């Protein structure tokens, strides 16, 4: 590390852009490589399979510019994306941004709440476990985390739905009408995120607690709360902050299944629907959104790390 702030920002921005480029290119190339007629497929998705006529297909082809040479389409496509002009959905005809934006809001809400719930659950458990490595709390938390991490989240979510929604009728089954509808998806997401987080927090705490600085402070008779706040807190939490990009990645991997399971109208469901309907603009725009979100999460984590760890700012070696 030891990069200056400007270089860091530039590097992250370039990386996010590169990832977005890869995703968009993948979408485009995969689409072009498909056998069969793209225009026909999109027309079938838009109007219904039995109502498609040859004239409709041709009109659609001309309208969506699908009759130009491939490289030209690719170039125009990239240029549009770079300018933020995502065009319209090939299926609904609505502007892509109008399709994506409200659903993005829901997904972000569930993701943020899930992350928060995971932090509330895993952080105290991990930190408490790390204070006494090898103790009963540590072993219990580690065992529980290993079990939870091995369970597929969609199966867990399904079981929760049956138990809490159908049998006990405590919570609604599916959809996103009320805040209560979000409880089960958030809990399922948190259950998927918590094990890794608890393990990282435990490790960070164990290292910080056993460090020379902590022992020394204790020997000098510094009050425990003071030690906890001033000496232990930052070294213990640095690994947790560094783990945030991994958590963000886990969220993007987990929420698609969760949205399908609980029938939430977020970008996960939109992605699956658009993929099956071969709605190219929406898929690529969603890929861009994912890449940017992950890049932002990574950048946020790195900036926080720089703020927390003076060694990074000074440009020296870490640990």
């Amino acid at each position, binding site marked *: 590390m030891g990069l200056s702030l400007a270089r860091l920002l530039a590097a992250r921005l370039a990386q996010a852009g590169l*990832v977005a480029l890869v995703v968009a290119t993948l979408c485009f190339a995969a689409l072009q*490589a498909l056998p069969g007629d793209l225009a026909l497929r999109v027309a079938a998705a838009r109007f219904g399979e039995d109502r498609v006529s040859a004239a409709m297909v041709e009109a659609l082809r001309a309208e969506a510019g699908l009759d130009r040479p491939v490289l030209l389409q690719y170039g125009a496509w990239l240029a549009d994306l770079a300018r933020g002009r995502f065009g319209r959905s090939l299926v609904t005809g609505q502007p892509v941004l109008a399709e994506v934006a409200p659903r993005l809001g829901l997904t972000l809400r569930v993701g943020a709440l899930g992350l928060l719930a995971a932090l509330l659950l895993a952080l105290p458990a991990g930190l408490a476990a790390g204070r006494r490595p090898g103790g009963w709390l540590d072993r219990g938390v580690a065992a529980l985390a290993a079990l939870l991490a*091995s369970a*597929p989240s969609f199966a867990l979510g399904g079981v929760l739905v049956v138990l809490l929604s159908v049998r006990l009728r405590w919570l609604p089954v599916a959809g996103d009408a009320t805040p209560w509808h979000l409880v089960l998806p958030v809990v399922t997401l948190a259950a998927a995120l918590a094990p890794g987080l608890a393990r990282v927090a435990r490790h960070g705490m164990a290292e910080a607690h056993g460090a020379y600085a902590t022992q020394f402070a204790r020997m000098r008779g510094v009050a425990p709360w003071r030690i906890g706040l001033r000496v232990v807190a930052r070294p213990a939490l640095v690994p947790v902050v560094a783990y945030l990009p991994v958590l963000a*990645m886990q969220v993007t991997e987990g929420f*698609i299944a969760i949205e399908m*399971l609980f029938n939430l109208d977020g970008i996960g469901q939109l992605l699956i629907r658009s*993929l*099956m309907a071969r709605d190219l603009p929406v898929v690529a725009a969603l890929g861009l959104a994912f890449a940017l979100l992950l890049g932002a999460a990574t950048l946020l984590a790195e900036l926080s790390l720089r703020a927390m760890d003076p060694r990074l700012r000074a440009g020296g070696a870490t640990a």
Partner: protein
Amino acid sequence: MSHRHGAAHRRFPWFGAGLAALLAATALAGPALLTADPLEPDLMAAGLPPGGEWLLGTDPLGRSVLARTVAAARLSLGVALAASLATALLGTVVGLLTASLGGMPRRLLRGLTETVYACPALLLVLVATELLGGGVGTVLLGLVLTRWPPYAQLAEPLARGALAAPEAEASLLLGFGRAYRLRRHAWPAIARPVASLAALHLGGNLLTVSALGFLGIGLLPPRPEWGAMIAEALPYLQEAPHMLAAPAAAIFLATWSATLIGEGLARAPAPALPLEET
């Protein structure tokens, strides 16, 4: 207390290895031992609970849950295992190269590693598998191309340390080539950590493959696949929980045993200081 804690992490993972061996044996030999056909539907026998003829009951189309779960083991476990091995190989090679090269090639490799690391793996595999056509090959390729960076990031510092050691320097001075030095000095330093990481990632790969199956993308029915079986069983969860329990338990056991093995192989974490209050 602290040294007991340290010793516990060096214990060989008997339980995990035993469980994994059991699962592997079931996956390999199981289909031959079972008489029920995992693919043939029999609507007269749909949704039967466990007992009697059907050890684990039947699914909505009347197929034996036990037969399907065992048959799916080969596919799901096989893909996850192959993905783990291939990613470990690719990532380790990149890591070793990064460690032994210098200057611009190293910077390029590092940049590549970081960029691919930032790629959302499931998303790319999802898009590629759905758009390029499902099938084991696409899923495997997608997983390998997106999940190798952690191995490179693990292998590089370890290899660099090993290559900077006096033994490696002696080899260099004696005129041995890069391949020899990597094999002789760098490999022993990275073998165990890489194996540990591969075992830990096996669980993740299995969960990803199941998630793809659950979403209906990639490995399509009627081929049995654990995630797809869970998706099929969800509507009937209340009346017939056994249909979901079997594949879910299978995924759970496989992931758990792989994680136990991976943790057992990993180096013990730094033991707490003797001054630590216990």
